């Protein structure tokens, strides 16, 4: 956001030899795992690591969608409650006797619908998504709580194929949920970098005015992205209820901050125009590794919140300082370019 002019020149001849943007976070993650692993070798047990991965699944999916939103300079604060509401909806469908598989698809569709609601409000009223979703955060929360009467929704366990499938472990070690997460991440990475839609997302985020004048409709992209976000929240929610077998009334209320933190740690800037799905996944894993690592060190779990905060600040400070260093080497201090944009 601050060093527009000093971005590293793509290496003289061909860009393909460049290090991927995500290298930094990946190294950080590996180092962190190694350090904890050296101190507590038990931590390196693949089963443990896969568990960590599966713990990141539900929030991680949200982070993958959030990458798209940050890439178009928007943010969705309501993701946690879309997640919750979709899960509740899925659960209630199951309670009502709908086949769990169909209910799960219903949950995804319902999430997309909530996303569409965000999108229509945001585009129709021409409001930034952050404002609209600040409002829908409360609305979805309220609706969800009204629908479930403030109690956990526990679907009946007559037909367990769905629950078994979601909670299963392939070869007994790889959790299906984690697998779905990884596949989703790969697909979304591909979509961002190799499809027209992904191109348009990046273009709108880079310079909305220029994109609009080049014929890329900002409104359409924003609507599509918000719907996509909703659908991903729905997927995450539907899987969650299959995985856990129940949905608590407040599950998801604190997701948004963790999700945004993961995306940012992963290297997607708030200023838009660029996003990294891989980074977001790694960022989510860093957060998870820290909180599980603390347990291995016997530190109270209450500290994990504190450490998450510290990691966010540290990671971004470090990134920022490296950029500074680069800027100083280039002997330039550039102005913040995006200061005067109004909604």
């Amino acid at each position, binding site marked *: 956001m601050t060093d527009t002019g000093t971005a590293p020149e793509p290496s003289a001849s061909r860009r393909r030899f460049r290090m991927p943007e995500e290298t930094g976070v990946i190294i950080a993650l590996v180092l962190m795992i190694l350090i904890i692993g050296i101190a507590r070798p038990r931590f390196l047990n693949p089963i443990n690591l896969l568990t960590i991965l599966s713990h990141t699944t539900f929030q991680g999916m949200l982070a993958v969608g959030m990458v798209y939103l940050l890439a178009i300079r928007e943010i969705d604060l309501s993701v946690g409650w879309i997640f919750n509401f979709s899960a509740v909806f899925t659960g209630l469908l199951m309670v009502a006797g709908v086949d769990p598989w169909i209910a799960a698809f219903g949950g995804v569709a319902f999430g997309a619908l909530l996303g569409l609601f965000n999108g229509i409000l945001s585009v129709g009223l021409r409001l930034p998504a952050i404002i609209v979703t*600040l409002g829908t*955060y409360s609305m979805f929360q309220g609706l969800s709580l009204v629908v479930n*009467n403030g109690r956990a929704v526990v679907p009946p366990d007559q037909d367990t194929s769905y629950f078994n499938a979601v909670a299963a472990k392939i070869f007994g070690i790889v959790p299906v949920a984690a697998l779905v997460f990884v596949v989703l991440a790969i697909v979304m990475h591909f979509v961002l970098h190799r499809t027209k839609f992904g191109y348009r997302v990046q273009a709108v985020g880079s310079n909305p005015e220029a994109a609009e004048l080049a014929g890329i409709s900002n409104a359409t992209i924003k609507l599509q992205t918000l719907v996509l976000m909703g659908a991903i929240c729905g997927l995450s929610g539907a899987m969650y209820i299959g995985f856990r077998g129940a949905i608590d009334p407040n599950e998801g209320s604190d997701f948004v901050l963790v999700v945004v933190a993961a995306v940012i740690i992963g290297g997607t800037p708030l200023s838009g125009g660029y996003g990294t799905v891989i980074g977001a996944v790694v960022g989510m894993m860093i957060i998870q590794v820290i909180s599980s690592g603390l347990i291995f060190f016997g530190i109270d779990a*209450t500290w994990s919140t*504190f*450490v*998450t*905060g510290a990691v966010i600040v540290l990671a971004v400070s470090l990134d920022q300082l490296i950029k500074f260093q680069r800027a100083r080497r280039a002997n330039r201090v550039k102005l913040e370019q995006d200061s005067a944009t109004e909604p």
Partner: protein
Amino acid sequence: MAPTDTPQTTATHGPGIRAAGRATVDVALRVGGLFAAVIVVAIIFIIINPAFANPNLAVSVLRSMSSVAIMAMGLTLVIVVGEIDLSFGAMYGLAANSLAVMWIVGGVPVYLAIPLVLCIGAVVGLFNGVLVTSIKIPSFIVTLGSYNLLYGLSLWVTNSGTFNPVYPPPGSTMDQGQLDFFIGLTQNIGAYRLSIEVFWMIGIAIVVGFLLHRTLFGFRLTAIGGNPTAGQLARLPVKRYKILAFVLCGVLASIAGMLDFSFIQTTQPDIGLSQTFPVFAAVIIGGASLTGGKGTIIGTLGGALLLAELQIGLALLSPGPHVQQIFLGAVTIGAVALDLFLTRIRKSRAA
């Protein structure tokens, strides 16, 4: 510069310079509309249930808006300068919890503990501000981090416990004088049992309002929020003012936390966290723009008032406790949308 005018023409301003322009009118309309909405909502409630025409209810609305309003004023300063603070809710909790721990567990006299907590608020604001201005991390991220940090600290200092000075944990005794003083900070007075917390809110509103609207600090703060680059190029003290805004926000959040603690007399580690969104909503409804440079204290108060009114009214009215959440969200979006809509109409008419 221009050649001296003869007396022939100096007296006339002609159509050139009129006294009041559109910008002032905009603000007036905005605030007027907000308070009109407050009255309309009140009337609707009363029509639905005439029992609502009850001064006690008004008093409790005022009380319940107080702490939200105090935090919202701090947030208004930060938003006006073009930044964002997500950590005030956690600061609110940390203030209450650390006061409780210092006073109830640590035995620090409350007279000393209160200023110490204010200092903590200031230090947290400083921390946020310095990271934002010196290392240039977007404030969204910094305060997202400090949100977690502060909540973590709350968990740590309280050891995940709850405190109540009236019922201290076994083994510790509370000084009655200190207890009376502390509870007296927000006690209910008068026939309608109006909490002193409301007066705190009004006092703070006057001070912060003066600061924002009538001083050079506020003038420049608004300017910086409108265009930080221009501020930097014009050599306005951008960094200092941004840090100051964060510090004030931190201090106000800790005041709110302590006052609510005094009123409710009990704390848990996670109090305040759920305040984050309502406070934001109040500021946004009050007309502040998230892009900075726009926001008034009176508007923020109006926003907080409208929210409190809805919350209490709906809580008493609705079959379930959660319908108010739906309304809260709708009102937030509606207020901003209406504002934008009116602005657009005015603009198109002017063009």
